[in-house]
């Protein structure tokens, strides 16, 4: 978002090559082409942003104004739209619910995946390799495959319409375990663990004081994916949660569409904007970090 953000070093450093001789005749033509490319890139950036811009502007305009056309000038109906929306749907509640679930999911997935990865990496036990390969195979299975069984299981356990089936399964996140095991095997040398044992530290203590801090960078990388994944999860809460006051933000969005609010376009736009803007603000500060995580995640595959 900020043009002065330092380019990702790992990616761009290799391109800061020493200047290569370029024939003078090609120089001017090159400049024209470059200018054209920048124009196209800027247009693309505008296209990427226009839907959000329309959303923000329309969120401040009244229903009648939106029906008559689109302008770039913000309207004056922001407060009115907000009141109309809040009459039917408490969007902040969905926000709170989503945040609660996503934070717990991220923490649980981070801690237990680190624990499991550590167990796989530094102990030898019977069936270790079989279990690890089995886990990798299950990693390929799409989430929808078990959806119906999962719903039935939750029904049997009496945990429908609670957050338990949305949160607890994150203790078992195969992909995070896989990623952390690869990471910890290359960064943490067994001799360090050995010397801690000689100093009399218990296994749990070693894990908590050496294992976790060593894995923290990789845990942080994975946490971004876990958080975004949980925050955006739609089908699971849609199937499992029935009470409107327990709805997560994505489900609440669907609810918004079917509610009275849909009659008032300004309020609709505002509701969507409220669900989108905090993410955009977070991205403004974290974009470099998030993008580097995507790069790291793809290369480690």
């Amino acid at each position, binding site marked *: *978002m900020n*043009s002065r*953000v330092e*380019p*990702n070093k790992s990616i761009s450093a290799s*391109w800061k090559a020493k200047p290569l001789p370029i024939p003078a005749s090609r120089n001017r033509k*090159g400049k024209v082409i*470059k200018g054209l*490319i920048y124009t196209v*890139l800027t247009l*693309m*950036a505008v*296209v990427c942003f226009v*839907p959000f811009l*329309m*959303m923000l502007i329309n969120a401040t305009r009244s229903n009648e104004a*939106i029906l008559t*056309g689109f302008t770039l000038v913000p309207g004056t109906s922001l407060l009115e739209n907000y009141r109309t929306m809040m009459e039917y749907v408490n969007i902040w509640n969905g926000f709170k619910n989503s945040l609660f679930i996503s934070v717990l999911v991220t923490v649980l997935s981070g801690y*237990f995946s680190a*624990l*499991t990865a550590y*167990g796989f990496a*530094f*102990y030898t*036990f019977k069936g270790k390799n079989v*279990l690890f390969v089995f886990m990798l195979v*299950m990693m*390929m*299975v*799409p989430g*929808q*495959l*078990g959806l*119906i*069984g*999962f719903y*039935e*299981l939750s029904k049997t356990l009496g945990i429908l319409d609670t957050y338990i*089936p949305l949160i607890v399964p994150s*203790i*078992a996140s*195969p992909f995070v375990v896989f990623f952390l095991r690869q990471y910890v095997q290359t960064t943490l040398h067994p001799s360090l663990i050995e010397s801690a044992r000689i100093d009399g530290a218990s296994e749990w203590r070693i*894990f908590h004081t050496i294992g976790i801090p060593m894995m923290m960078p990789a845990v942080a990388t994975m946490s971004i994916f876990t958080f*975004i994944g949980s925050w955006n999860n*739609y*089908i699971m809460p849609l199937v499992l949660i029935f009470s409107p006051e327990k709805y997560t933000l*994505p489900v609440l*969005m*669907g609810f*918004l*569409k079917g509610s009275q609010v849909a009659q008032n376009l300004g309020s609709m736009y505002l509701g*969507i904007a409220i669900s*989108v803007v905090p*993410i*955009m603000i977070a*991205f403004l500060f974290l974009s470099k970090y*998030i993008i580097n995580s995507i*790069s790291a995640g*793809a*290369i480690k595959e």
Partner: protein
Amino acid sequence: MKNLNKYGYFFIAPFWIVFLVFSIYPVALTFYYSFTNYSGTGSAVVVGLSNYKRLLTDNYFVDAFFNTWKIWGINFALQIGIALILAAIFSDMRMKMKGQAFFRAIFYLPNLITVSSVALLFGILLDWQHGSLNVVLMNLGFINDPIDWLNKPATAQISVSLILTWMWFGHSFIVIMAGISGISKDYYEAALIDGANRWQTLTKITLPLLKPILLYIMITSLIGGLQLFDLPMLLTDGIGSPDGSLNTMVLYLYNQAFKYNNYGYASAVAYGLFIITVIFSAIVFKSMYGNQRKQAGQV
């Protein structure tokens, strides 16, 4: 020294208990249901393979299969095309493009937004009469009459494809750039000195060396694409309108199970989808790595 390896079991135990209960058991239970006529209440009666037989002749499922492919295919071609062009531009040593971090961030932004918000937003932006998109396109003179985006099968599918492209090209661009950064710049310098043009550099160096990354993008995009649900669910009425053109396989699964209470049949749909995913992932994998082996053999 006492044997500490039993701790290995302690450390992985929480994972496996939760994994068995919440991942493996549901998958197995769904498998069992796929051979029954379970309807959500009462007991499940085993009906053999009849759900799978029905699946093969179910026009709704077959249509959903092709819809999913059409929507994903158009999106993927555009997404990977745009991402590759962008990557070629930003990795070109002669051009020395600036502002990569800025463009990367802004191109990636749509990917971060909750899909249901995106669906709702485009649902009203694409509205035929009052949608801001038609209004703006008409004001700018690109079209004379408003386009009824979401009420005609062809435009509805293209709309979903384009929204997906909008959401994902930035992500592919980032991943491709990450892949390119792993390629030694010596290759490019050598190519430059040998007088290779941009096209040759792209097709003879970048693309072959990017194969693993392109494979990664293709497989993850394919698996994600075959599971397309949020967008078609929320963009129109939730059962695939207009004319069933936005009915995707997962949307069909969802509606069969939770709208019509055909749990048994929906379970078979889930396994059908799984088999399709495995087959196509294997084809993609084979076609990309099979070629490589052939080439290696020729040398």
